């Protein structure tokens, strides 16, 4: 195997896995706590990307330095979480927690369809591309392979930081503890004074911010165009299902598996590249229907 191609596939896979993981993290957090599979998560990802491109484009046209894109990414993600995620939870999901899963799935799918058209309405159908920030961090050369620092170092670092940060948040902060308690037993949590409604809202907003952040971070590396949300929800669902729904650490590993599997397929067997994530998912679920790290009953997150 040619070392250069091997390295390229490796780097592609790692940087892609980092992005997918960030999105999957929000999806699996929401599922773990609220038992809702949020199909609209893909739209939040896409809108995070669109918002970043618009904000960055505006800032650059005002003469701002490209490095300013980083705070704008964060702002976009938080806006997506608060302005879109918040209302989705309060106005829709809150009414259906005790309803059958099929209905919950249909409702979040409906939100996804609505938001897809909202994107076309606001941003049109032509692709956007805004990669100034990608170049601002420069390149790095490893064994003769040149790659952007943004994709090879920053994205994986952010992904790992978010994983550790979320773990810390859940285990060591009061809000995290309230989330864990509500996840385990909603009524018992309420009977010691935990406001489960507030906990669910907080969880959904955090999850939505992660989706938006995934989109914001992806925006310099890809064309922003209709349909990107659909691609991402399917892929991040594959990651989450392979790991076991609600498994935060597991999702990191399966994101890496699926990211690397996909990128190596692109270089060595391109015909099946799009299939690889789902092949991995199917193979894992055939052997372990509860996912690699899921246990049939036990803990949820």
């Amino acid at each position, binding site marked *: 195997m040619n070392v250069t191609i091997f390295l390229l596939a490796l780097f592609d896979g790692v940087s892609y896995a980092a992005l997918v993981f960030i999105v999957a993290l929000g999806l699996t957090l929401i599922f773990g706590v609220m038992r809702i599979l949020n199909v609209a998560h893909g739209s939040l990802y896409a809108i995070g990307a669109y918002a970043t491109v618009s904000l960055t484009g505006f800032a650059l046209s005002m003469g701002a330095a490209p490095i300013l894109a980083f705070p704008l990414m964060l702002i976009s993600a938080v806006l997506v979480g608060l302005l879109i995620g918040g209302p989705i939870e309060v106005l829709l999901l809150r009414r259906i927690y005790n309803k059958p899963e099929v209905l919950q799935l249909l409702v979040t799918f409906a939100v996804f369809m609505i938001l897809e058209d909202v994107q076309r309405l606001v941003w049109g159908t032509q692709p956007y591309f805004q990669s100034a920030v990608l170049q601002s961090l420069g390149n790095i050369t490893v064994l003769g392979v040149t790659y952007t620092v943004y994709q090879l170092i920053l994205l994986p670092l952010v992904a790992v930081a978010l994983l550790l940060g979320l773990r810390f948040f859940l285990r060591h902060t009061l809000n995290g503890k309230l989330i864990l*308690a509500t996840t385990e*037993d909603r009524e*018992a949590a*309420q009977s*010691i*004074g935990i406001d489960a409604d507030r906990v669910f809202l907080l969880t959904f907003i955090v999850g939505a911010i992660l989706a938006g952040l995934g989109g914001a971070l992806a925006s310099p590396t890809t064309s922003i165009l209709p349909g990107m949300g659909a691609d991402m929800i399917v892929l991040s669902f594959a990651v989450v299902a392979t790991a076991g729904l609600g498994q935060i650490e597991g999702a990191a590993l399966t994101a890496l598996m699926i990211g690397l599997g996909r990128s190596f397929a692109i270089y060595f067997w391109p015909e099946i590249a799009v299939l690889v994530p789902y092949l991995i998912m199917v193979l894992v679920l055939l052997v372990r229907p509860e996912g690699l790290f899921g246990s049939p009953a036990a803990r949820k997150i």
Partner: protein
Amino acid sequence: MLQLKSLDASIGIIPILRGVDISLQAAETVALIGRNGAGKTTVLRTIMGFTKVTRGEILFEGAPVTALHPPKRPALGIGYAPEDRRLFSAFTVEENILLPAQAAGLDKGETRRRLERAYHILPELKAMTDRPGGAVSGGQGKMVALARALMLGTKLIMLDEPFQGLAPALAQRYAEALRTLRDTDRSVTLIITESNPALLRGFADRTLVIERGEVAAGTLDAERTPA
């Protein structure tokens, strides 16, 4: 201090309680006796706000709480230990006990003071503070659940079948802990459900009997005397 006035309550669409009238005085200990399925747990869950009240009202210290958001009720001074313990397995024993105080936003000093009170009443818990909540035995779990209820239960403590499934030695200990609670805190109101009236004899000031969702006062007195 707590009044349920001609209360009807249902779970989902199934009516459980019918015309329940209960009035608790401050500082009294009341036994709520009834067979399995009679509605004991539903009375407590209704006071906590987990059922649908279709008629009547609940007054706590004179103020209506019938429609009060359930998670706001513990902060009124109500501690509740559900029948099946329901500890949080992700946390240690001490974290389980502390959580209500943290959720209520009590300051460090007050939390400490209440934790000391709980440990004073249940000193055996001090030996297992770091054990995971999911790894204690059923009986120990009941003690932890009592300690957890003590953290916010400054006015009213509701214990749902606390003796259910306890080994005799542990049941003795539990009853002892309740006596210590009574001795250290004369103002708190206690309501304890039980299917076996003999267990609370001599401890409760008053016995209420619940039968098919309806409450009658002290009608078990006749059964009380022999055994």
